């Protein structure tokens, strides 16, 4: 046979990137070269193993628009650690300060990222997928520099809000409002910015009696009713 022994092409052949002429030349050669034939089997096995790697596995970096996700995860970890501390330190009031970051507006929170019992077998939290019509928004106020990312989930005639708010100074007293298209505002919660809140932001859940289709924006104001940041949704 006239085929030349060029094992350097085998890899590209296995990976399927040779053109037709080259591929045929390799195949001709393979028929007569037992060494290349053995090599081929090994490389092919490797190629098959690579095929099991999900393509997403090779992406690097943080996800786009995943800020709320990170905040929720941090919150769950904090509250689980808080749970551990409470169990160890019953009666000591130190815990609250260490855990602080979670602020529950409006009297109740919606049940995402609730802390499972520490020590129990890790359970998947069965948070249902948010209903259709869930809206996301994010904005930075040019004047105050405050940033907010919100998720607004429709309920029957009202809305649940999850907000991550950053860039507000410690000790600022804040209110979270849902603003309706007709300008009406309903408070969805209030909080005091902690040192950690100033540094890492605050994540809070709230709710308001404004119909999902009427929601125009989510807004943070201080107790002097000065606007800190508005996120249209």
């Amino acid at each position: 046979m006239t085929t030349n022994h060029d094992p350097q092409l085998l890899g590209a052949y296995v990976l399927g990137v040779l053109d037709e002429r080259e591929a045929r030349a390799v195949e001709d050669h393979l028929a007569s070269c037992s060494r290349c034939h053995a090599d081929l089997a090994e490389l092919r096995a490797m190629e098959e193993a690579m095929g099991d790697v999900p393509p997403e596995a090779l992406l690097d970096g943080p996800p786009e628009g995943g800020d709320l996700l990170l905040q929720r995860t941090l919150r769950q970890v904090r509250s689980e650690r808080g749970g551990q501390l409470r169990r160890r330190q019953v009666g000591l009031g130190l815990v609250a300060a260490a855990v602080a970051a979670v602020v529950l507006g409006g009297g109740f929170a919606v049940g995402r990222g609730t802390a499972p019992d520490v020590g129990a077998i890790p359970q998947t939290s069965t948070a249902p997928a948010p209903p259709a019509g869930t809206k996301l928004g994010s904005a930075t106020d040019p004047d105050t520099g405050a940033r907010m990312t919100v998720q607004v989930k429709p309920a029957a005639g009202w809305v649940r809000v999850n907000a991550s708010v950053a860039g507000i100074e410690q000790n600022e007293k804040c209110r979270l409002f849902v603003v309706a298209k007709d300008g009406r505002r309903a408070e969805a919660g209030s909080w005091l910015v902690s040192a950690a809140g100033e540094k890492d932001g605050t994540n809070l859940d709230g709710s308001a009696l404004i119909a999902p289709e009427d929601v125009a924006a989510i807004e943070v104001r201080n107790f002097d009713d000065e606007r800190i940041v508005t996120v249209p949704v």
Partner: protein
Amino acid sequence: MAALWSRKREAAADEALIRSLYEEHGRALLAYATRLTGDRAAAEDVVQETLVRAWRHPDTLVNGKGSVRGWLLTVARNIVTDRFRAKAARPQEVAETPTTPPVERDHADSVVDSMVVLEALDRLSSDHRDVLMEIYFRGRSVTEAAEALGVPPGTVKSRSHYALRALRETFVGQQVALKGVAG
């Protein structure tokens, strides 16, 4: 108080761990979970749970980006599988739509293999890794890869050969080590 300080340090370490996993692997995890669930919101829940499990089991986060990522992806996949299974057991739930295909459970071997491949990829020289990324994982032609990498097409061909060989060597060594430990 020393005790309080150490607790604060632990809390800071928790946050740092979660943040660094998120910064490094978040995109891969979320993209993978989104494909498996067909639903970004459900995928976010899966990623959250995956990161929390990693935090609960820091001992599994051994050295090497490849294996950490492999572990995280495997956990994410298992969470998705378990949820679909739980849903299937509760008929009152809304049926799966065509956009959320049921997830088959991987054969344990292929999960282990893909973790090992990831780690082996991570150990390749950057020349070798780059050429495999281009022509295998990004599906580019030799010409396109040559352009992207700034080398002649002939180099892309020979380099991909040596890259595949190098990967194979690391892979086989790793596979033996890992299966030895597991089995």
